[in-house]
């Protein structure tokens, strides 16, 4: 952003430092959204792409994605084992560049760990693991989740201005794809939960009916008998219900059929 050339009468000069995202990347991300089995495998691909885009001969970039889970940072995906270890190392400390980047919502660069005075314990540990510079880029997920792309380099000043804006542009594209992946994952999880609930409810309702017939009691009372058995034996309600049915008919497998 800093060094765009004025003059030459050009009024359409786009800042050189923010390269337009290539259609290649867009297509690639779209394919990843469709192909990835789950969120973790998508994020692993994101880390791999980030690493290969930013690495240059003599300066290999290790890349990892940390996601906030229950207010705790968890390393979920990485380009390689070293990046995974570095993310986990960072998450072991209460604060660090990754969490700071997330809080500020902007990329955070530590050009030279030897010069950095913040997060002293973490920085020392990272240096011991061969990190000389790092870049943390938050993925803006519009409040659906919180994630940061962590990039580590073994060279001091391992990230040029161009690298940083490239990483930011990549992160913003990856974030919108990630939102899609998350949406799909949530929907399919909800669908699976509902399918399980239907199965479970069938078994439980059937057991309630059996208890009602056997004890000549109301549905509420039958329910009470079943929940009491579950609580006192510390067995899941569904398993107690299955046991009730199989004790009557020997059937162990009660299926609920529905079209998908």
């Amino acid at each position, binding site marked *: 952003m800093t060094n765009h050339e004025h003059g030459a009468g050009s009024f359409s000069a786009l800042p050189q430092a923010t390269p337009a995202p290539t259609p290649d990347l867009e297509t690639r991300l779209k394919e990843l959204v469709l192909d990835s089995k789950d969120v973790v495998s998508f994020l692993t691909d994101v880390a791999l792409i980030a690493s290969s885009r930013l690495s240059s001969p003599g300066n290999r970039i290790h890349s990892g994605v940390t996601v906030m889970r*229950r207010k705790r940072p968890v390393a979920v995906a990485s380009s390689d084992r070293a990046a995974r270890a570095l993310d986990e190392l960072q998450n072991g400390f209460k604060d660090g560049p990754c969490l700071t980047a997330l809080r500020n919502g902007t990329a955070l660069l530590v050009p030279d760990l030897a010069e950095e005075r913040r997060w002293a314990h973490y920085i020392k540990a990272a240096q011991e693991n061969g990190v000389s510079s790092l870049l943390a880029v938050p993925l803006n997920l519009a409040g659906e989740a919180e994630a940061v792309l962590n990039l580590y380099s073994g060279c001091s000043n391992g990230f040029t201005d161009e690298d940083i804006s490239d990483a930011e542009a990549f992160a913003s594209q990856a974030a919108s794809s990630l939102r899609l992946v998350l949406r799909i994952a949530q929907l399919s999880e*909800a669908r699976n*939960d*509902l399918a*399980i*609930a*239907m*199965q*479970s*409810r069938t078994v*439980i*309702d059937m057991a*309630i009916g059996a208890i009602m017939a056997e004890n000549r009691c*109301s549905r*509420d*009372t039958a*329910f*009470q008998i079943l*929940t*009491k058995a*579950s*609580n006192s034996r510390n067995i*899941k*309600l*569904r398993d107690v219900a299955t046991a009730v049915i199989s004790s009557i008919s020997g059937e162990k497998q009660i299926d609920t059929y529905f079209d998908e």
Partner: protein
Amino acid sequence: MYSHGADGPEQPDRAEDLRGPAERFRRTDLPLAKLWTYYYGLGGGMDEMSLDAYLHEALDVPAAQVTLIAMAMTELMEGESS
């Protein structure tokens, strides 16, 4: 469908006990939809909005339903920790 009169000795019968699961829920970060689905799977008889209202102290529900809500929460948490 569930009458208040069905409370037995095993059912929570004090106001405190009836609120317990709601308080417990607010200390977890269990998503409402996940809890409702599981509770429904146990034979729960309230819709998701009523469950939400109960969990936020806006609706009193029969003790039998409270038992199921508590059970759903317990079984869900067990599944997560294992």
